Each structure stands twice: as structure tokens, then as C-alpha cells.
């Protein structure tokens, strides 16, 4: 059974239908890249999966539980699915370590000691064990994004949603973040990532989703999608038409 099952999902902003019937099944441990033009609905799809937007039609099942817009269901969902943002969104008033500890402590009621040890471990996992006491504004963009990953991991999610997590970074900082993500992929984390890093997508992902005008336009293993794009739109997007 798939970990995330998206069926006929539609989403409108006013008159603007942004998602026009999305179907996508993600197996546990799968790494999926979502590519597509600006405005094709990539972010909206991820945000719907995390319940940051409500869907108008269709269903989203995560580990068999249906996404519903009430507080209780949302909370349950978000305990299973973590999200990482383009703009990091670290809590500026808390140190890196505290950023990671906060949610386990207040949401899961993990005792402080335990949460601290867990935070230390997660920070080490992203190569920032020595930055526990640094505030976000004392960290580089790449480091902040890695703390954000550690923060999401501390909730022990079944899957991570990543929305262009390297787009706000200076080019020389992109790799340190991608390395962390690559390691997570290798360790079997389920990843759903919107990305413009085509090389990374080709190397790391199991499947690539090409979104176009609110639909899954093409989907397949990277060799197929990048090597033999079927549709004109994808060829144009990849710049080989």
C-alpha cells in the first residue's frame, strides 16, 4: 500500500483552478521530484498534502488516514508528514537546538532532556552538532536550511515535503543542503520534493513528476522523463524541443 495516496485532488483560488485533478501514489521510501513551470501548482500540491491549504475535491490519504480540515486530523497528519520551506522559516527567537526541540516538547510532550539529546543527534545528522546554541541569524542560509531539516526530522515523520529548499540559497551553499537530502534518501526516507536541481533529481529520485497547468503531465523514472520526454510541454520545459 502506498504511504501517500492522492486521488483526483482539485484546488481553486477563487476562479483560478490551480490543481485540476491530481493523482499520485507515493510508496514508503520512495523519493519523488516534482518539476514544472512557475505557477503550475507544485507548491500548492505540497501545501495541500501538509494541510496548509484545504482541498476542494478529491482525497489525500497518508498512511491510510484521510486528510480532513479539522484541527485534530490536521495535527495527526502533520505528525506523519514534515515540511521544509524555501525560506527556512526558523524561529528567530530560538537557538538552533531550541528550534529542533520545540515541537517534540510542546506537541509530543517529550521531556526536555530527551528532546535535547534528540535535537543534538538530529543536528549532528545534518552536520551542525556544534551549532546547537547559535541563533538563526548567526547561521548561513545553508546552515539554516539544514537546521530546518533537523527540526522536521525531530518529529520522526514518515515523509518529508520539500518545496524548493535550495532556491533561496547562494549557489555555493546549495550542495551542502542537497548532500543532506541525498543522505536522507539513501537512508530510506520518503521524500516529495519540488526542485529545480535537475541533476540532483536525476541522480537521487526514483520517479519524477512533471506538472503542467495543474495536472500531472508526465511521470516516470528519471531516465525516461529526462532521457525520453514524451510530451511537447516537457520537451520545452527541459529545453530540448
Amino acid at each position, binding site marked *: 500500500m502506498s504511504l501517500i495516496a492522492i486521488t483526483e485532488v482539485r484546488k481553486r483560488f477563487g476562479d483560478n483552478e490551480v490543481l485540476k485533478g491530481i493523482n499520485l501514489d507515493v510508496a514508503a521510501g520512495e523519493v519523488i521530484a516534482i518539476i514544472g513551470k512557475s505557477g503550475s501548482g507544485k507548491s500548492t500540491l505540497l501545501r495541500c498534502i*501538509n494541510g496548509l491549504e484545504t482541498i476542494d475535491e478529491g482525497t489525500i490519504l497518508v498512511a491510510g488516514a484521510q486528510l480532513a480540515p479539522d484541527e485534530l486530523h490536521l495535527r495527526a497528519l*502533520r*505528525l506523519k508528514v514534515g*515540511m521544509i520551506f524555501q525560506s527556512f522559516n526558523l524561529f*528567530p527567537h530560538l537557538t538552533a537546538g531550541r528550534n529542533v526541540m520545540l515541537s517534540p516538547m510542546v506537541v509530543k510532550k517529550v521531556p526536555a532532556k530527551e528532546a535535547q539529546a534528540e535535537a543534538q543527534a538530529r543536528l549532528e545528522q545534518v552536520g551542525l552538532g556544534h551549532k546547537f546554541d547559535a541563533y538563526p541569524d548567526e547561521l548561513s542560509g545553508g546552515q539554516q536550511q539544514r537546521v530546518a531539516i533537523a527540526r*522536521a526530522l525531530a518529529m520522526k515523520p514518515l515523509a518529508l515535503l520539500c518545496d524548493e529548499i535550495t532556491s533561496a540559497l547562494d549557489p555555493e551553499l546549495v550542495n551542502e543542503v542537497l548532500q543532506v537530502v541525498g543522505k536522507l534518501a539513501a537512508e530510506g526516507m520518503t521524500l516529495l520534493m519540488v526542485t529545480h536541481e535537475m541533476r540532483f533529481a536525476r541522480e537521487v529520485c526514483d520517479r519524477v513528476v512533471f506538472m503542467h497547468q495543474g495536472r500531472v503531465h508526465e511521470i516516470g523514472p528519471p531516465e525516461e522523463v529526462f532521457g525520453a520526454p514524451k510530451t511537447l510541454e516537457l520537451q520545452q520545459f527541459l529545453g530540448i524541443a
Partner: protein
Amino acid sequence: MSPFTTWDIVRNLLFAAQWTVILSLVAFIGGGVVGLLMLFARTSKRVAARRLAILYIELFQGTPLLMQLFLFFFGLSLIGFNVPPWLAAGLALTLWTAAFLAEIWRGCVEAIPRGQWEASSSLAMSYFEQMRYVVLPQALRIAVPPTVGFSVQVVKATALTSIIGFVELSKASTMITNATFQPFVVYGFAALMYFALCWPLSKSSQLLERKLNVAHRNH
């Protein structure tokens, strides 16, 4: 010449000024608590709660405080409570203060970037957890200067309670004037005392504001 020395006047005014201070503190603390509740309602996801908070804020900000004082004073006695002036004054000022603080704080909460809400949502926090651990700690920093600034309005507003008969600095001034026939001196000293209470608050609000702006620029 009146038998009152200047010192008599000052002494009596100072005594009455205590009540101005006490009433200000009560209104400010009480208003802070009610204001926080209103803030939660005003920024809540529930439409009904938001509407109610908006109505509350509009009513108390959109009518003269003096009318509110009268309505409390006479209204409460209508429904059978015999309200002494201090109670009507304390209640009305508290609710009035709450409306303004809620609105000031809402501005601060809304100044917190949306990403902070989304990140904390994605970490499975509830609305109260988000407010308590993520939004309010950040909003608090920017809320301090305008909140301190508003405390000046509260102190000045207590003067109106003299009109429903609460004896504080203004009421005492009128009473002492009636006894001494020295309005210039009495009201002059009263103004000086209000100034001594308010000016440090105004100044510190300004300084805090400036400090915050500098901190912002250095980020």
C-alpha cells in the same frame, strides 16, 4: 489670603495622585488580561470569535470613554448593582484599555511573517501552541514600545473617572480649588503631577522604539 499653604495643596494632590496610579495599574493590568483574550479571539480561525472581537474593539474605540463610564455607572445600577464610582471606573477603564491593547497587539502579531505560522503548523502545533511558543514571543519584542506608549493614554484617561465621582488627582484638584480659590496653582500642580507620571513612560516608549529600529537595521 486663604489659610492653605502651597504645601497643603501639593500634599493633598499627592495623596490623591496615589489613586490615579492605582487606578491606572488596575486598568492596565486588567486591560492587559482582557486584551490578550480579545487578541486571541481577534486572530482566531473561528469567524464568530473574530466578529465578536471586532465588534468589541469597534465599540470601545468608537465611542467616547466618558460615555462608557456613564453607561457603566448608571447601567450597572439599573440591573440592580449599586456600583460605587471606583468599581464603575475600574471596569470601564479596564474594558476600554483592553480594546486598544488588543488592537495594538494584533498589529504586532500580524507583523510576524506568515512563514512562522506555516512552519509551526507543519510541526503539528495547535493554534495556542503556535501563539504561545512561536508568535507571541516574537510579537512581544515589537509590542513593548507601543504598549508602554499606550500606558500614557491610560494614565490620562483616569482623569475622566473624576466626572463620575471617583476621587483621584483630577477630582481632588477640583475639590481643593473649591476650598482654596487658587485654580491656577492647583491645576498647575495637578498638570505637573500628571506630567511626572506620563513623561517618563512616553520617553521610554520612544527610546525602546528607537532601540528596536536600530536592532532591526543591524539584522
